[in-house]
């Protein structure tokens, strides 16, 4: 990475390090109840405390204030602090800005809030019952910009959104099927756990709000904050230092509203840093229940699939409806299925709000459909590899969204994953052959695999500029956020290659909405593809300008000029040549600025889910080998072999890190990561001792990743999240292969495996 030295010396800058003169510390008072009306808030004692600058409550958002306090990406269902009621344990109710953390914490303890508790609902199915308590009443207002993405629904319930996909005649498809199988799979709430928590510093200065904030989407933060504060975009500036990990958690407004209003009230800069416990009640992966019904012919041909999916988006929708839509549109998997009917719902409950998490709904989908693929293979007595192969999507096939597919590589990926396991037909647990799985004391070995097809957000837009300096060096201006994936490195490489200069002469900016052009977001594995495309276009624009100026200076025609090694030369006359710097100076321009925007188009019909779901499809496969202790149920993942179609790889080492990172992230979600709720919506594992993430001793002996590249391919495929979704299903399939225990709800804890083995033993004994 180009900033590697700063990274190993601890000098790399995070928002955590931002300090301003006169800066105050902000702290948040949170709701102890899952659902309650706020009767009264008394802040007088806190306000009287020495060192307290200001206290923020709903009292600051009366109609007279002119501020509505309401915001939200898709629905305006969230507020800066709770207004009439609280809707989950941990919701911000008040905030304090004080000289230091100690005073701020002390002040929080002095704020008295009277609540009138209301009945609460936590389960997504219970929330949809007619008599369920209403989380939001009336139905929150939908942001108009999302009206072609998310269908608005009538109020009066907890149903937040409904994604529909209708293809073929699903009932007829089931009637024609020889067998129809219906299974239910569940994924729990899980945490992102970027090691850097959410951090925001807000300052009002010269009629302008400046935010230094840990976000993956600076421009979306700017526009939402401008709307909240009734300011033109130019009066809000968002600066993003490198992130200490994001994984989707830093993808919506988080601390920015509270920090900004505290700073506005106190008239001093305010910094808020979340404690880990607070991270747990800020955002999470959607708990989801998927009922998946698949019709299949005797020979293994898939005929029809119907899925009903409920994504529990918690108290506030964040991007939940888009997660449900993205997960929903992926539920037919990388398979040819003529008849598909999908209903994917986002549901409001009184749990921690759920949002984007690496994979964006697809992990929940793959867990269901790839587990079921193995289950169907067993029911039909088929080899799970061949059963998949038989149904794979290939070039010119139509996806469930009706779009024609090209550049499909699933067969190669499947072969690679199977080869990584040395899979043979005799390895299926249900095959008659001697199984290759080992047995050693209580340990049993097994292997499994899973495939994934995943969209990248479509439509989307990235813009970039390249500023040529008078010495020929380049500033790439981009709002792509560096969160450890190496965005800056890759964009520098792309700019350097396009402009034919060494990487050392390229500098890539940090996002700063005053200076750097629009980018939708750093997410969805899109930066190298989308921002890389914008940088390439900006380079084209810059080259055109260079050639025009050079033509004049060299008295030659543009078509006779060539760009190479940082110079423009008249073809065939090497002496008639100018460096980029000379062109900038001698044309009296000093700077030349190339601009580029990369836009993809598409969209799905709201009633049928037909259209363009993705500008191209991310494709992956993973092989997994496990060892299961049949006496304890404990699963050890021995090997993972992620395989991805990458098109053209820009930086192999950074790609490999993404694949390994996905594998390990998925291992955590597969084996033990789960947010556990106790009584009444109280989260009980809000620290890293009680919520474990994978350690050095949990990772497989090996993760052997490989990128499938196609020589001559111009298409860059993002790899940031493609290989996370199939990890859990591959582990589940391998566990079944090893011991015959089919777990349908994640994670595959030792206890669940042992309970299932115990149940099987009893059933056999009976």
């Amino acid at each position, binding site marked *: 990475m180009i900033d590697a030295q700063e990274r190993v010396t601890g000098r790399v800058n995070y928002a955590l390090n931002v300090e301003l003169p006169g800066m105050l510390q902000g702290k948040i008072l949170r709701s102890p109840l899952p659902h309650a009306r706020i009767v009264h808030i008394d802040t007088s004692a806190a306000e009287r405390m020495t060192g307290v600058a200001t206290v923020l409550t709903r009292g600051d958002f009366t109609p007279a204030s002119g501020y509505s306090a309401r915001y939200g990406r898709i629905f305006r269902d969230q507020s800066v602090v709770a207004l009439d009621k609280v809707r989950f344990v941990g919701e911000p109710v008040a905030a304090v800005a004080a000289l230091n953390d*100690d*005073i701020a*914490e*002390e002040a929080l303890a002095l704020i008295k809030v009277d609540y009138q508790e209301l009945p609460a609902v936590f389960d997504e199915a219970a929330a949809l019952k007619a008599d369920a308590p209403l989380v939001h009443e009336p139905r929150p207002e939908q942001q108009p910009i999302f009206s072609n993405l998310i269908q608005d629904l009538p109020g009066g319930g907890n149903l937040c959104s409904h994604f529909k996909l209708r293809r073929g005649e699903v009932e007829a498809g089931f009637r024609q099927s020889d067998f129809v199988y219906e299974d239910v799979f569940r994924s729990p709430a899980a945490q992102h756990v970027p090691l850097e928590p959410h951090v925001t510093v807000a300052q009002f200065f010269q009629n302008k709000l400046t935010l230094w904030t840990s976000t993956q989407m600076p421009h979306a933060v700017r526009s939402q904050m401008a709307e909240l504060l009734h300011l033109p975009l130019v009066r809000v500036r968002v600066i993003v230092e490198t992130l200490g990990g994001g994984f989707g958690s830093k993808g919506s407004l988080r601390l920015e509203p509270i920090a900004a209003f505290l700073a506005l009230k106190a008239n001093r800069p305010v910094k808020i840093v979340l404690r880990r416990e607070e991270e747990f009640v800020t955002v999470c992966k959607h708990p989801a229940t998927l009922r998946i019904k698949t019709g299949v012919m005797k020979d293994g041909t898939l005929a029809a699939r119907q899925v009903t999916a409920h994504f529990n988006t918690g108290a506030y929708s964040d991007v939940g409806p888009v997660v449900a839509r993205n997960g929903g549109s992926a539920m037919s998997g990388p398979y040819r299925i003529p008849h598909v009917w999908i209903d994917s719902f986002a549901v409001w409950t009184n749990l921690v709000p759920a949002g984007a998490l690496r994979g964006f709904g697809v992990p929940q989908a793959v867990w269901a459909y790839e587990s079921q693929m193995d289950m169907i293979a067993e029911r039909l007595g088929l080899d799970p590899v061949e059963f998949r192969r038989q149904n794979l999507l290939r070039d010119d096939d139509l996806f469930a969204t009706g779009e024609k597919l090209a550049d499909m590589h699933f067969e190669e990926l499947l072969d690679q994953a199977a080869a990584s396991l040395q899979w043979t037909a005799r390895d299926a647990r249900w095959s008659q052959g001697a199984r290759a799985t080992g047995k050693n004391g209580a340990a049993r070995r097994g292997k499994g695999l899973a495939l994934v097809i995943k969209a990248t957000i479509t439509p989307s837009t990235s813009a970039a500029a390249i500023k040529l300096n008078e010495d020929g060096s380049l500033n790439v201006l981009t709002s792509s956020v560096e969160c450890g994936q190496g965005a800056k490195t890759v964009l520098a490489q792309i700019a350097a290659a396009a402009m034919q200069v060494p990487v050392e002469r390229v500098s890539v900016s940090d996002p700063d909405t005053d200076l750097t052009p629009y980018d939708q977001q750093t997410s969805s594995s899109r930066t190298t593809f989308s921002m890389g495309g914008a940088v390439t276009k900006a380079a084209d624009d810059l080259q055109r300008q260079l050639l025009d100026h050079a033509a004049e200076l060299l008295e030659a025609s543009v078509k006779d000029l060539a760009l190479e090694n940082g110079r423009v030369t008249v073809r065939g006359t090497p002496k008639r040549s100018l460096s980029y710097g000379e062109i900038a100076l001698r044309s009296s321009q000093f700077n030349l600025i190339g601009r580029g925007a990369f836009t993809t188009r598409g969209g799905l019909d709201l009633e049928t889910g037909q259209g363009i779901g993705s500008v191209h499809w991310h494709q992956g496969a993973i092989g997994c080998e496990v060892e299961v202790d049949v*006496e*304890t149920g*404990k699963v050890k993942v021995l090997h993972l072999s992620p395989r991805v179609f990458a098109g053209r790889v820009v930086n192999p080492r950074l790609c490999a890190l993404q694949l390994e990172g996905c594998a390990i992230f998925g291992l955590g979600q597969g*084996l*033990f990561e789960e947010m*556990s709720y106790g009584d009444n919506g109280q989260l*009980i*594992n809000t620290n890293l*001792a*009680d919520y*474990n*993430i*994978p*350690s*050095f*001793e*949990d990772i497989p002996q090996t993760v052997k990743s490989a990128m499938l590249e196609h020589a001559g391919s111009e298409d860059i495929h993002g790899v940031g999240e493609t290989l996370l979704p199939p990890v859990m299903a591959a582990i589940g399939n391998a566990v079944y292969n090893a011991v015959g225990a089919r777990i349908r709800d994640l994670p595959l*804890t*030792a*206890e669940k495996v*042992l*309970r299932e083995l*115990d149940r099987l033993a009893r059933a056999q004994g009976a």
Partner: protein
Amino acid sequence: MPNIKLLQPGSLNEAVSLLSAPSDEMKIISGGTALVIMLKNRLIAPATLLSLGRLAELRSIQHERGTGLRIGALATLREAELSPIIREKNPTLADTFAKVGNVRVRHAATVGGNLSEADYASDPPCVLIAMGARVKARNAKGEREIPLANLFKGFYETALASDEILTELIVPDLAPGSRSAYLKYVSRSSEDRPCVGMAAVLETQADGTCKELRLVAGAVCEIPQEITAAEEQARGQRLTGPLIEKIAQAYAEAIEPLSDLRGSAWYRKQIIRVLARRAIKQVSAAN
């Protein structure tokens, strides 16, 4: 705003006299790895912290003939883990200290602090009970010894009085021909605290029969669990497969485990049986 007075006595006498002075809300801090978390989460709000960090006299690790290992309360877990004397005299004990937390925690946390905290999901307590260890406790009036089996009283509760400091851990030498083992079972990450810990010490007689078996389960209840009636079944017997299974089963039946994120009561019962069997097999393997 917390306004904590920090006392750092230079001798044990000074420390116990400070403790004996009537004072509310004084807490003892040694390594601080548990106490600082409680402090930060405002679970405790002591007016005074009494740091034992300067009591160099409590850091030594020695072996005395006839007494056994004498481990100063202020020795860190890491010092105990790496101590050549402990490694030589009682490798199972050294390995047990090595299993607590992570290396950073072990560099700070002390042997005395670990026992005084009485965390139900800690590794050393069950091992030390199985080994017949005892601790010394001092107050201004004098010193007493407390067998480990009597030290733990409940969740984070010990027999230590509020004016007492745990000063030393004494671990008698295991009888010749004894074998010991500690099995730590984590149900989630390697970095998790134990779901179940199982300590076994077996003394074998010349004819190969069992003289005494001590088997203590940790992390399953508020305090470590030893089922004497089950242990006695081993006395004078050869530890055959069926007998081992019988003892393991008796442990699983007698213990009423708690449920937490690391496993339900049902699950812990299964693991108690498995670990009891594996631990006994391990210590009787030579026979």
